[in-house]
């Protein structure tokens, strides 16, 4: 399970910045990081299902194509750097 409840987070951080029809990678990834970095430790711990739960809600609220963030967001070898 996931100790963080992702159901009622403020997804407008992402949905206001990352929009169709082209879903620009720079805007979508920056907004994704802004939303997700506070939960980085939880998300990186793959023994819980926080990451998949979070992405389900992000895709639901933003009507995003499946796989959008995983396919568009690339940075260094450790992953996406948080501020």
């Amino acid at each position, binding site marked *: 399970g996931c100790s963080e409840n992702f159901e009622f987070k403020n997804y407008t951080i992402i*949905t206001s910045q990352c*929009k*169709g*029809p*082209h879903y*620009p990678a720079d*805007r979508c990834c920056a907004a994704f990081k802004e939303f997700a970095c506070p939960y980085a430790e939880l998300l990186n711990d793959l023994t819980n299902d926080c990451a998949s739960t979070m992405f389900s809600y992000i895709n639901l609220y*933003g*009507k*995003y*194509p*499946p*796989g959008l963030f995983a396919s568009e967001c690339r940075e260094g070898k450790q992953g996406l750097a948080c501020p």
Partner: protein
Amino acid sequence: ANYVPADEYFLNCGGPNGETPGQKWTSDIASSFLQKSGSSTAAKASTQDPSVSEVPYMTARVFSSVFTYSIPVGPGRKFVRLYFYPVSYDNRNASNAVFTVTAQSYTLLKNFSAFQTTQALNYVSLVKEYSVYVEGDKLDITFKPESKISNSYAFVNGIEVVSMPDIYSTTDGTTKIVGQDSPFIIDNTTALENVYRLNVGGNDISPDKDTGMFRSWYDDTNYIYGAAFGVPETADPNLTITYPDGMPSYVAPLDVYSTARSMGPNARINLNYNLTWILSIDSGFSYLVRLHFCEVASNITDINQRVFDIFLNNQTAQEGADVAGWANRHNGVPVYKDYVVFAPTGDPQQDMWLALHPNTASKSQFYDAILNGVEVFKVNDTTGNLGGLNPTP
């Protein structure tokens, strides 16, 4: 060879001349296309979302009363594309922009709110594409604010009118309504709205990379049902795509036919799922569904190797589809098939299901399916209307 349109207009409404990849925009200010007597204002967008280009989105022509563009064109079919960036113009409230747009005798948009539509789709801008047959020597596009809404207005950021070849008509009667055996005729009296154009198994294709018709093609993954993505396939580099006689090469770009999506290497798994796309459509209209096929695998070059059934809205549209068979026992040869489905009235929008499943009756070598591209067009109803209801955010 690409199609070369005789008429090609890219009007930047309310703004200056400009360029976007492959498209030269001309200002409509003081243009002879504007209705002489009509009143309209050229306005700047109140905000610029970084993902919209200056041209044509940062300026608009705003109408508080009925207004017509009269564009001189030769007779024949035209693509009409309307560009909308629904922010505030001239300090007006974006949600008051509710209007109707007609072209010749067809209603393209009715009670249209670009603002509500972009909210519902979480889009920043919209391009609405139509195909209209022009009899005479000009195309009239009329904007009419919704009278039932106080201080309503109409606006448009860009108007594109390009000649197109008559590649979507079905006058030969071979296009059937799914589930019935009756032919469905699309001819010069039919207006169409393109609602989906997907490069299945491939990437987005921008208008300048189309075959001269400035169509946009989108990656199909947004519409795959569930997580059943199957396998994207790309033609081997040494496989040349050769269009069969009688099929103009501008029907679809090479990138559509050289990429595809299939079900995967494991027959047992393939027999237990349908490769499915879900496409939200307006209720109460008929739809022309064009499926593009081309065998891209080097080991599939004969009949009865990859045979599958095609379902549209849970009805069998095609039994025993055999792409290599349709292509005279070749791979690398594009083929397309047209079907018509009717979306009964009810909720404002409904889901159209497009599903593929192996045809085991054929005992084909591979229990698999393949698709390269999908185009879906809304067909005008008996009153000449193409306008659906705005989607609910």
